[in-house]
């Protein structure tokens, strides 16, 4: 972008889309399509579903943007629509079942092996990546969505709270519990290397 080019704020673009301005809509799509697609993909793990969801989300924007009372909340509204659509897809496909959250994680059961010192080729192996993906997928939905939004998509806690209609402490708590569960899974997985190092 050339120096001095004014980048319109979301609120301005949203106001123009409400008036039927297709150039503003195009700018919104360019700004958010990757984020919408990425979030949908990381929830569904399905490229064609993510593309379909992305299209549906922006059609929903056109159909319902008039109901958005505060234009400043456009991004969080968009993420909420995306998240709902992605879980709607999973439920329709029956690929998602809510799991019972762990009320109390027994950290004493986890071996205190410091796997952070393992070499990168172990930590970043395809197998360990698969373990993490499966562990994220296995989280209860209430934690999974937040872990994806925060640790995969890099959204702020405040935006996640607004998107999901949760309080900030609730987001932090679920994020923490989700991370603890993931860490426990990784600790069990990587503990196999503890014996090899001790040998």
């Amino acid at each position, binding site marked *: 972008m050339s120096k001095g080019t004014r980048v319109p704020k979301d609120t301005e673009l949203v106001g123009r889309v409400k008036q039927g301005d297709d150039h503003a809509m195009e700018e919104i799509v360019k700004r958010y399509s990757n984020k919408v697609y990425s979030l949908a993909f990381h929830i569904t793990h399905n490229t064609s579903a993510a*593309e379909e969801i992305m299209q549906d989300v922006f059609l929903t924007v056109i159909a319902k943007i008039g109901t958005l009372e505060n234009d400043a909340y456009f991004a969080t509204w968009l993420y909420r629509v995306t998240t709902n659509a992605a879980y709607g897809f999973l439920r329709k496909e029956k690929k998602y079942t809510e799991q019972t959250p762990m009320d109390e994680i027994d950290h004493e059961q986890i071996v205190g092996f410091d796997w952070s010192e393992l070499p990168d080729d172990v930590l970043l192996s395809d197998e360990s990546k698969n373990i993490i993906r499966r562990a994220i997928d296995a989280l209860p939905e209430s934690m999974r969505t937040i872990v994806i939004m925060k640790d995969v998509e890099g959204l702020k806690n405040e935006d996640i709270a607004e998107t999901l209609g949760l309080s900030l402490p609730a987001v932090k708590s679920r994020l923490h519990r989700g991370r603890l569960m993931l860490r426990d899974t990784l600790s069990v997985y990587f503990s196999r290397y503890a014996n090899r190092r001790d040998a």
Partner: protein
Amino acid sequence: MNCKRYLALLNEFVECTLPQEVQDDIRAHMETCPRCRVFYRTYSLTITLSRRAENTCCISEDQVDRLCCLLANRLSKK
């Protein structure tokens, strides 16, 4: 600071959102507690690995263009 309180605050500690004196208390606790030190390292690494495990994905310019055409068409009919 004890291990239980440390664990409850770890999430905010890694994000540096705690008051400075609490951050310092946690660091002091980790100095004396090897188990919590390991827990901090593995917890932090879990966050890093979660980010790296999921493939970055993006859509093509063609897909964006097709979507823009569809939406412009839909807008014109509103």
